């Protein structure tokens, strides 16, 4: 009989290796899945994980895409991970991302066509504020009325999507766009454009912000007393109260921070790679970032690596759709499998398997 036995303390080895094992299992089972769909499993895996970086024809295009896609994922996931550590589940980063983009873009467009160097910093600030404000709704409802932040933040995603549609076809629509929905193109407006900082690397201000966030989160969680309090709140809420942590403040802080970072990510995306506010400019980064946060073990460095890996599966997945005519749903399944296997292998961090023989009574 197989039994799970609780470990006296969490295994360090499993904490580190369970994501690697999860990636491996995903490759094996994903390969089987692709095989059943008629593609060669090895070719499919190579197309997803190897070709985007090293294929002689595609790499030049897809390599910069790695940072473009990983940037927002990492930035959002860092914010979410701090809340997750405290046991505060912001599932609505997608909505905060949209609201950050709308506020950031809107704040800039209000001054069109000014070329002031203050425009872009103002837009960053507005993006942060927009995401923060949107996350404050579940935060205040939770602390005042005891609502569940998972439900409220998730529902607000759909509200945000509706506001986005209204913004793109209404108050932010390009007056010179001949009636088509979508805002002015930021790529044509230097002061507000979040362009590549180094040509052909995909590096833009959002990626820089993500890297800063990784370092700041690392220091915050491992060294700062407030970071300690956040972790304590998640591990043992009663001990946190005993230590003197104010639970209301932790909720406001964690939701506010994750909302602000998601909002900034949205603003960087709208003014950079996306180029404009359009009806469907959000690409699900806010949801995927949840996977990234867990895949990275809620650890800032882990999230950095997980963000890059997730970005790779995005790019590789598109490539596989193109080259091997695999259905898009199969790629999404493949990404979902990653979280599934991660959660499954995660059990071994706190538990170990015991094989017990059936003994004669």
């Amino acid at each position, binding site marked *: 009989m197989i039994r799970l036995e609780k470990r006296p303390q969490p295994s360090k080895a499993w904490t580190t290796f369970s994501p690697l094992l999860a990636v491996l299992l995903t490759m094996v089972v994903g390969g089987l899945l692709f095989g059943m769909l008629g593609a060669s499993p090895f070719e499919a895996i190579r197309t997803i994980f190897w070709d985007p970086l090293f294929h002689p024809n595609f790499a030049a295009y897809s390599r910069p895409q790695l940072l473009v896609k990983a940037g927002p994922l990492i930035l959002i996931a860092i914010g979410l991970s701090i809340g997750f550590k405290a046991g505060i589940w912001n599932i609505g980063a997608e909505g905060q991302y949209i609201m950050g983009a709308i506020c950031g873009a809107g704040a800039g467009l209000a001054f069109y066509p000014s070329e002031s160097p203050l425009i872009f910093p103002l837009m960053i600030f507005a993006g942060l504020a927009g995401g923060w404000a949107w996350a404050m709704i579940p935060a205040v409802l939770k602390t005042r009325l005891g609502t569940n932040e998972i439900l409220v933040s998730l529902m607000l995603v759909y509200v945000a999507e509706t506001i986005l549609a209204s913004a793109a076809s209404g108050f932010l629509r390009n007056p010179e766009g001949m009636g088509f929905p979508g805002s002015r193109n930021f790529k044509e407006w230097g002061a507000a454009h979040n362009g590549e900082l180094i040509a052909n690397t995909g590096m833009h201000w959002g990626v820089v912000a993500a890297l800063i966030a990784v370092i700041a989160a690392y220091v915050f969680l491992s060294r*700062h*007393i407030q970071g300690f309090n956040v*972790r304590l709140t998640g591990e*043992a809420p*009663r001990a946190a*109260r005993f230590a003197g942590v104010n639970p209301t403040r932790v909720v406001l802080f964690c939701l506010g921070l994750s909302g602000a970072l998601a909002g900034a990510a949205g603003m960087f995306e709208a003014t950079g790679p996306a180029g404009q506010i359009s009806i469907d400019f959000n690409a699900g980064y806010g949801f995927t970032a949840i996977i990234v946060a867990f895949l990275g073990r809620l650890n800032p460095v882990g999230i950095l690596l997980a963000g890059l890996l997730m970005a790779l599966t995005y790019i590789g997945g598109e490539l596989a759709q193109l080259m091997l005519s695999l259905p898009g749903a199969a790629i999404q399944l493949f990404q979902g499998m990653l979280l599934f296997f991660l959660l499954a292998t995660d059990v071994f961090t706190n538990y170990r398997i015991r094989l*017990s023989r059936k003994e004669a009574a």
Partner: protein
Amino acid sequence: MSDTLLSIRGLTKAYPGVVANDDVSFDIQKGEIHALLGENGAGKSTLVKMIYGLVAPDKGDMSFDGATHAPSKPSEARQAGVAMVFQHFSLFDALNVAENVALGMENPPAPRDLAKRIREVSELYGLPLDPARMVGTLSAGERQRVEIIRCLLQDPRLLIMDEPTSVLTPQEVEILFETLRKLKAEGTSILYISHKLEEIRALCDHATILRHGKNVGTCIPADSTAREMAEMMVGSSFATPAAHDRDLGDVLLDVTGLSLPQQGDFGTPLRDISFQLRAGEVLGFGGVAGNGQDELLMALSGEYLTEAGSVALKGADVSRHGPSARRNAGLLSAPEERLGHAAAPDMSLTENGVLTAADRQNLTSNGLINWGKAQDFAETVIKAFDVRTPGPHVAARALSGGNLQKYVVGREILQDPEVLVINQPTWGVDAAAAASIRQALLDLAAKGAAIVVISQDLDELMEISDRFGALNEGRLSAPRPVTELDMEQIGLMMGGAHGMEVAHVEH
């Protein structure tokens, strides 16, 4: 047929890094009360878990009434006739007594029959209990009766009791002992685990003493002194706390009319509690569990805020200040529940040191934690309070209850509190460690600190307190000097009759 019920031969169980039981052998006779004695971590729990089928031994064997006894799960042990009453009850507050009993049985009878049998058994053994009462409304002693009756309904031949008296009033202890003696007279054997040596002397026929996982001797408790047994257990002699003769200073803590509404469904409201505590004084609060102990500690620590003017520290009102502010002002506390309240289970001892000592020990600068300094502090506590652990990096939940208790108490004492509020300071700690914790509290008082000790161990309170008060349904009796009191009076003061009220089972 011999008179031996359970025979244990060469039982060995090793966990990574520690041998919990090393070649333990002894016999339990039919119809005897056999004591199992030992320090924390001596391997008592592991041993009874093997008998009860929760843990499989690495080596050695057991025989139960002549037949091989190797249960692979508790239900097999129960079938053989072994029953166990755990130290921590596994009862559902929101279900009634009969429902709780049924949940723990293999084949529960129909509810009506069960209620009848519960009444029969409870009357037969003098354990008054109403099957229809909600468990949430029961005292700790009554909850224990539920567990005992659940065991007795299965007609056990060996009853294992893990620290049964730690939650009982003296009167309840007497009732329990009567029951156990009655069971013994009927031929049931009892394996009785306790730290309280006087109890073992009063109750048990034989005692087996474990030290570091080894059987270091068997004795007849009635013929040995408590001191002799304790020394066998510890392997060296320990000091009884020194008598106290202290000069009292100024009033440090002044509590006036402190009230707190009921928190949660099964909490106890605090009603108009008033007392004054002077520098150098130890004030002991007794009472049956669930009469406001936790609430009082949390109201004093700052986890619950009370009306302005109800708690004054060194003359300044702190009623509206949270735990951090009170700590910085010199009021420290140690709650009863070690895992989850006093300490975070999955965090290391170093991190758990930061939990309360961050400000007072200057473990942070500009908000950044100095982990080196934090580790030094944790190591100091581990050393000063003899916490048995591989090091400060170990997670709190990996420590045995007694060792974690020593760490939690030490963490507060070493921060030089001016006022210390402590709930159950020696709960689950072995005799030697309990003595050293009490001594540390007395030393702290001698240095001029004021201490509130909340405890259910009356011997402990009598030993270290200057004045004694009792909590009963959230009210505090006026504290009186212990020299004016005897055990009987105290029992009545703390509502010792409380446990007896339900003695008249309806019908």
